[in-house]
């Protein structure tokens, strides 16, 4: 468990790329011959729109997200010293030994001090990656930016896009620029916890049962520990931004930790689908930044079906007030 308020290192900007037009699950389920009962349960669990991008590579998805950062400007890329990639889907990578990091270096002519990918902790990987970005910048005052990128693509059709009956998987990429100036959020407490017993993932009915029995308990424990470490009561956050699936599960957790349901941001389960590690940036851009701009902290969390969990508090950037005042005076 890592904890403590960091020096003023935070998120400069974030963006995402969900490919193509949103697909309506109702139309898609008919094409894919999804059982009507299953479709009904998906709809009842809040699923509706999602994104398919099977014609794009991981580098394409990340590349698109990068070009959305900072209003489309690209000068800042010359100041990126660290590139950290995170992914959930094991297949979301070029054939080994080829590397998506190398593909991105070539595409954007990056000059890096260090790059790596965080894997095998599923949707908790993105928070681990942002935390590594923070640590690396913290140790290297000469470095201006660390860039966190994610890409996840689903292989196979309905069977692999539908998560039991409570989630629909999107293909998607994201980019999160971490720095120490012009911050849209400061990085606060980070909690990472693994319950390694679930390391095999949902590969057989016994493990699926174990995951469904334990994950809500593990997430509840993570939230309670995170609340204690950060000193910020869960209800004092503008919102908790979970992954974009499993509505009932999040409602159960909210009940278990005495969090009002309306503090959970669940809109994107219907609007975006679950794009694995990209959900962090999707929810930050769609909801988190607005709350942070209004002065509220937000809590992002990544849970997984391999027993890895992570939570990160983002704090409003106090210096933003000063910056705005300075700009107004100028």
């Amino acid at each position, binding site marked *: *468990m890592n904890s403590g308020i960091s020096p003023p290192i935070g998120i400069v900007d974030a963006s995402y790329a969900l490919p193509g037009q949103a697909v309506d699950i109702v139309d898609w389920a008919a094409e894919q011959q999804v059982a009507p009962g299953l479709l009904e349960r998906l709809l009842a669990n809040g699923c509706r729109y999602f994104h398919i991008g*099977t*014609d*794009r*590579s*991981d580098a394409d998805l990340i590349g698109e997200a990068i070009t959305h950062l900072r209003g489309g400007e690209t000068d800042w890329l010359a100041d990126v010293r660290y590139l950290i*990639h995170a992914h959930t889907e*094991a*297949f*979301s*990578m*070029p*054939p*080994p*030994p*080829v*590397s*998506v*990091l*190398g*593909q991105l*270096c*070539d595409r954007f002519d990056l000059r*890096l001090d*260090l*790059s*790596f*990918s*965080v*894997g*095998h*902790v*599923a949707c908790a990987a993105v928070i*681990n990656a942002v935390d*590594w970005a923070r*640590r*690396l910048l913290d*140790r290297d005052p000469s470095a201006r930016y660390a860039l966190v990128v994610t890409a996840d*693509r*689903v*292989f*196979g*059709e309905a069977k692999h896009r539908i998560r039991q009956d409570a989630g629909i998987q999107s*293909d998607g990429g994201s980019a999160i620029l971490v720095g120490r100036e012009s911050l849209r959020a400061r990085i606060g407490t980070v909690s*990472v916890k*693994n319950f*390694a*017993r*679930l*390391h*095999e*993932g*949902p*590969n057989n009915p016994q493990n699926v049962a174990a995951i469904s029995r334990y994950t809500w308990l593990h997430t509840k424990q993570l939230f309670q520990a995170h609340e204690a470490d950060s000193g910020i009561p869960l209800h004092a956050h503008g919102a908790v931004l979970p992954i974009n699936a499993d509505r009932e599960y999040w409602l159960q957790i909210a009940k278990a930790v005495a969090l009002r349901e309306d503090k959970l941001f669940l809109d994107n389960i219907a609007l975006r689908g679950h794009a694995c590690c990209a959900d962090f940036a999707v929810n930050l851009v769609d909801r988190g930044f607005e709350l942070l701009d209004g002065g509220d902290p937000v809590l992002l969390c990544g849970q997984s*079906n*391999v*027993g*890895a969990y992570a939570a990160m508090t983002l704090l409003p950037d106090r210096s933003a007030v000063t910056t705005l005042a300075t700009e107004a005076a100028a």
Partner: protein
Amino acid sequence: MSLAIHALAVCPAAQSDHASLLGTPLTSAYHHLYDEAGMFSRPATVRRGVTRMYAPEYRAPIAGKDVRSTDLASHAVARVLDALPGQAARVSHVMHTQCTLDRQILGSTCLRIQHDHFPNAGSALTLGQLGTAALPTLFALLADHLEGENALCSVSASDLWMAPFYRRIPNLVTYADVGAACLVSAETGRPAIARIKAVRTAYRRMPAEPWSAPSAEISNALLDAVVDCTGALLDDALLAQSSSAMDRTSLLIAGDRYADGFAERVARRLGLRSVSADPDQQEIHLSSASMLGSLSDLIRHVVDGGQDRDAVVWTASPSGHVGAALVRIHADAQVAPNGWRSAQTQGDASP
């Protein structure tokens, strides 16, 4: 930077004959790569339905069809813990690297290692996307992670090559199925088999598909990248130390086992003395575990010589990622199953 390595194990799969350029056919994961989305995750030169591409028969460490890459990693970690019993409870971090897929695509190797061996570990990560050359980056991160901590970290690397990925690129590389592991700390006062004093990593643009490009083109580009990276590591190290602290002419060097005497060419270009692997295995690349294999070769050489030595160990991948480490090798390292352990009484509670 100072990272102490207290024990090391390198565990290649058993030798086996193989007559395909591609890895072992394992159908459980294979079909995913032939979905539409798979076109970006498999070599474009391997058509749907193809699980073998003829190659004259060769011998290499190749795992049986019932073995997983996570098995190779967990087994190697177990050997390290056999070498230094009583240490598992002190391990607080698990770091693993692999560049290949595990055939059970939903599972997690780093969490498997945590589960199998280290109930007290607080973090577990798998590093990837650096070709087979992730270990220098892993060590650089670890130095940061462990600084000021009285903690041990389990470091492991494993790969198992399955079709449709290429096991062999003729005249360049033949990848083995290997697991390797070591126990590392940032402690300076404890016995160690080797101490990493500096690490440098670099990236150089390479042909997009190594199996399609002329092997000489990749080989020459890799050679330049390794020489530049290692040269810069040594220049920095010499600047950081008094000239008497490190005599470049006495430095040893070892690195990846690419074809056509690649490691010897690196050593010649740098003017350093190469330490070779077992002659029968000189052109079998140990995949992501390669750096630990080279380190094991260096330790054997230094133990035979009876005197502590400084050495450079490098690794490089056709992904374009290269890295090198300056390492003090201790001559009092003791032989352990599949590797080495620090000089101490077996069962000593502190490494």
